């Protein structure tokens, strides 16, 4: 290839990369733009602190509060993420090569990937069947467990990937001092991978707080703020879904306001978690 041609190919590839980047950024900007432009005018403090007065389909003006969905979503997403983290961290540790042979690890990884591909409505239906079997009603607890199940595969995978990226030499260094496998994992690998673990949790949290389908049967929907784990709970994604289905334009605008609130929660949680990770990860060896 002549020098000139190599330059042309180089430029072409660069242009292609920039095009893809532009396309992705434009789509994201468009989605966020629509949510902000349509949602911001409808957003009010009253809406955030008031439950709906007369149902979503018909609730208009001052009556269309989303406090029930906001609180429900925060409960479900944080509860589900906490529950999933408690399960995922040990599983991710077990998926390290020090603990399980390669074949078993690959099989489990494959299963998790398949589980990740299952539509969340199916997971929701599965949880609903289990709940129905034990005679449980749609409840906050059901929603938390369902969301934990939905986001667990991606959390485990992201955590395991982060942990396996810890340098093998660091492992050796700790082992050479007489540390046990478990000691190395807990005292060294987890510390080294704090940023990756936080990313895994955030990834799962984002998925969890945005999921509507799995909650339809399991946490149900309610116009009231749940006061216990056994009460049904509303959620923002379902509120958005119901409001968008309404024939009234002002109710539809409420859906965009709810989406904006959802977006802001994710932004705040992400920024907070990143700041924490930066503090926890000051000793991470790069």
């Amino acid at each position, binding site marked *: 290839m002549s020098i000139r041609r190599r330059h042309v190919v180089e430029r072409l590839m660069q242009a292609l990369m920039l095009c893809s980047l532009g396309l992705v950024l434009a789509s994201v900007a468009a989605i966020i733009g629509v949510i902000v432009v349509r949602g911001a005018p409808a957003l009010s403090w009253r809406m955030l602190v008031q439950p709906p007065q007369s149902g979503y389909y018909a609730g208009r003006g001052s009556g269309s509060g989303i406090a029930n969905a906001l609180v429900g979503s925060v409960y479900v997403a944080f509860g589900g993420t906490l529950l999933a983290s408690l399960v995922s961290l040990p599983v991710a540790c077990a998926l390290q090569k020090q603990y399980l042979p390669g074949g078993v690890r690959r099989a489990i990884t494959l299963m998790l990937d398949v589980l990740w591909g299952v539509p969340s409505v199916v997971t929701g239906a599965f949880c609903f069947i289990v709940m129905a079997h034990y005679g449980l009603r749609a409840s906050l607890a059901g929603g938390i467990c369902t969301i934990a199940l939905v986001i667990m595969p991606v959390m485990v995978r992201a955590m395991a990937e982060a942990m396996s990226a810890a340098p093998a*030499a660091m*492992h050796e260094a700790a082992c*050479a*001092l007489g*540390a046990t496998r478990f000691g190395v994992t807990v*005292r060294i690998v987890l510390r080294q991978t704090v940023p990756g673990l936080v990313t895994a949790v955030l990834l799962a949290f984002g998925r969890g707080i945005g999921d509507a389908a799995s909650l339809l049967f399991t946490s149900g929907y309610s116009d009231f703020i749940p006061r216990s784990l056994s009460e049904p709970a509303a959620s923002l994604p379902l509120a958005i879904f119901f409001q968008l289905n309404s024939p009234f334009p002002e109710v539809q605008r409420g859906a965009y306001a709810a989406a904006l609130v959802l977006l802001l929660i994710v932004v705040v949680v992400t920024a907070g978690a990143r700041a924490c990770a930066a503090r926890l990860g000051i000793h991470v060896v790069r």
Partner: protein
Amino acid sequence: MPHIRIKALNVAYKTHIALKDVTVDIPDGQITAIIGPSGCGKSTLLKSINRLIDLTDGVQVSGSVLVDGADVYAADADLLSLRRKLGFLMQRPYPLPLSIYENVAFGTRIHDMDSAELNGRSLQLGLPSVVPRPDSRHARRFERARLVQRCLEMAGLWDEVKNRLKQSAHGLSIGQQQRLALARALAVGPTTILADEATSALDPISTKLVEQQLRTLKGPYTILMVTHILRQAKRLADYVLFMYMGELVEHGPAAKMFTVPDRAETRAYISGEIS
């Protein structure tokens, strides 16, 4: 009896034979250098002493390595206390993701050393005796701090880090990191230091510093180092093992090995005909 005796040691990685029937006693209190061309099994020999080769997939070992009379490959071998006796310096030092202080204290924490043990270790490293106090968190903290300082001094690093013990170890230069690894190893009370090309990633000044520390440590410590730099072996070694293609070809005092070796391969390597 020497601290380390290797008997009929064979190591294979899957189908590749890395060590063939190696038998040797490592002289105590001296610096022993393992020399030989790349891929001849130097590092494998070193890592089979503290069983770090166990971390490699598909490795098979036969024969025995006796550390203070106990076979490290025995079924009931206590690997954790064994590794405590064998400080290890890697080719490229890896600080643990902790502060400088905690890097050195790491070993004392994983072995859950109480204040009497920490005090005993400080005594071994030449600190004056203090009136022993009953074991408590406070006493441990006090003894640990003394020990950490002593280890950093012995590794020749204290003056450079004494004002930033709480900072991350990854902020140190690579030469400082290697001396930190030495301090880390000294804290848990080894009798032997295994150094796997410990200066190959270092600049000349850091290399000189690490060599200096190794020289001052020999005597109370047995030092076994792998090096592919012949001049370094000549500078430091009291005893030399020459390996070639997985076999221990010849071993003997450095003065003899570098002047009148018995075997033709050794002569060829030392004269630079093979490398």
